[in-house]
């Protein structure tokens, strides 16, 4: 029997629910932690970032307007499909991060569990972050969190799946849409996650995934005036990225900024920090007397 030729993959971006090539036509080679060729990925350009922001902006009101219950259902469905792609995730995490298969399996399981955990949060955010405020007058005074809008995410460089899920899930659970710049050297789990999202019920444009060099793309995302918040977590350990300069650029339209830690966290646990930063508190005074 003839030897079967290997199918070498060239992945594309995930923008607005579709998989376009980079507008620039560029690609780059993705290698395993040991240097073996894995696949080609799209080398995104500033215009791809722009298109992704446009898609995120148009998808955001619909996503925020869906009921919290519905958002929870949709996110749970994502976890179900991730479960179906478990073997692929395990192989990609093992190759990308240079860990053993058992270790990769543990990471993938944790990532799926974390996604489920965030799916459960969608209809509990207001109860935890909101409040009925005591005021000196005959009013109800209610504070409730609302999504910030379009969030730019510089995804963690090292933790290609668990870290990615930990930064994306809370942002969309709250009703934001996002543009994700993937780990530059380890983009494959993010690309597979985008294929998962495309086949789940998450509306196109809610999550947009752009692969490519972080140093080239992050400044455009940080300066873009249609982005309402930016998570700079992935600046830690990224080549040639000046997080301070990004923060300065982000200040132009008063984006919410999540600063990077000096070193990337290990993602063993998670908390509500991103939920807090990427929601805005709306306070309503309501006359009592009912």
């Amino acid at each position: 029997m003839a030897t079967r030729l290997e199918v070498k993959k060239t992945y594309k971006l995930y923008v607005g629910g579709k998989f376009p090539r980079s507008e620039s036509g560029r690609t780059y080679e993705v290698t395993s932690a040991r240097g073996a060729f894995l696949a080609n990925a799209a080398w995104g350009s500033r215009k791809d970032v722009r298109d992704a922001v446009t898609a995120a902006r148009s998808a955001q009101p619909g996503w925020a307007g869906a009921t919290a219950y519905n958002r929870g259902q949709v996110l749970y469905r994502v976890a179900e499909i991730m479960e179906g792609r478990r073997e692929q995730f395990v192989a990609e995490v093992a190759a990308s991060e240079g860990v053993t298969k058992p270790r990769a399996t543990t990471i993938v399981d944790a990532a799926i569990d974390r996604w489920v955990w965030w799916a459960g949060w969608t209809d509990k955010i207001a109860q935890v972050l909101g409040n009925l405020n005591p005021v000196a007058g005959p009013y109800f005074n209610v504070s409730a969190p609302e999504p910030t809008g379009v969030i730019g995410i510089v995804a963690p460089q090292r933790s290609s799946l668990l870290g990615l899920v930990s930064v994306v899930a809370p942002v969309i659970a709250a009703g934001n849409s996002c543009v994700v710049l993937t780990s530059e050297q380890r983009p494959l789990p993010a690309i597979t996650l985008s294929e998962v999202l495309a086949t789940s019920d998450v509306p196109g444009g809610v999550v947009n995934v752009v692969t490519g060099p972080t140093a080239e793309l992050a400044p455009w995302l940080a300066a873009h005036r249609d982005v309402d918040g930016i998570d700079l977590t992935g600046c830690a350990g990224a080549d040639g990225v000046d997080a301070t300069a990004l923060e300065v650029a982000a200040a132009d339209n008063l984006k919410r900024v999540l600063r990077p830690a000096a070193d990337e966290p290990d993602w063993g646990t998670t908390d509500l920090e991103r939920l807090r930063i990427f929601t805005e508190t709306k306070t309503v005074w309501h006359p009592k007397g009912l």
Partner: protein
Amino acid sequence: MSASAAPSRARELLGVSALTNKALTSWLHGLPGIDAVGCEGRAAALSTRSIKTDAKAWAIDTAISMIDLTTLEGADTPGKVRALCAKAVTPDPVDPTTPRPAAICVYNDLVGIAREALGDSGIHVAAVATAFPSGRASLEVKLADTQDAVDLGADEIDMVIDRGAFLAGDYRTVFDQIVAVKEACGEAHLKVILETGELATYDNVRRASWLAMLAGADFIKTSTGKISPAATLPVTLVMLEAVRDWRDLTGVQIGVKPAGGIKTTKDALKYLVTLNEIAGEDWLTPQWFRFGASSLLGDLLQQRRKLATGVYTGSRDVTID
């Protein structure tokens, strides 16, 4: 050219002693036919030009100055028209070097409001008249409609042709109506809307263009914006060829106005490239080319700011119509 001169010039051009429907028909049907595939191919080829940096900045400013900023809704209020006029006078409050659009285009009864709001800004007021958008009314009503707009101070009148008569082959009626409306316009410029979306073929677009120019139009305009498809690049290309050939024949220059569906800077640049390539540089001014648009201005302003600051602008940085 005075309005009453149109019939005699038409007789001269056609070489006939009486301007009958038969004479018009044989003249219009004697125009060369259009290769639809070739026309669309040419338009597609012209839309692949890459316009960047300095050229793009020039094109954006030129496009802004060519806009007839339009609101033609049943729900138009005096407040909305005033807001639109304020936007025309100061398109970008952050950058006073931003050029102003050429005109505000409104329904007849709102001309007075627009006139007052625009003051001495130099921005023209264009009114859609003659039973816009369908054109289904008697000539008397159309003329009264036109007179009304002129009396209220409209500088430009956008009329619609009687597409029913045109498609029925009654070119003489279409001709006579344009001549009559032109006369009612007095000093005001007359733009003749062909409503190409209802004309079905490129050959018809060419015939309607020549018929309108023959009858004394100052501008030929693609569409009302109420019918889909509105302006398309191939249709505009056919009309640009018509005004180019008309000037070669008669020495008279006629303007062109694509309207409807032109929403982005990219679209506008394609039209400007086509304009330059087909009609020529002489048409590259607001006097001879206009865009009928509302949301286009917002996108042009966003792109203008992007060029000036080097940062992508937000969708909420500019007003929505």
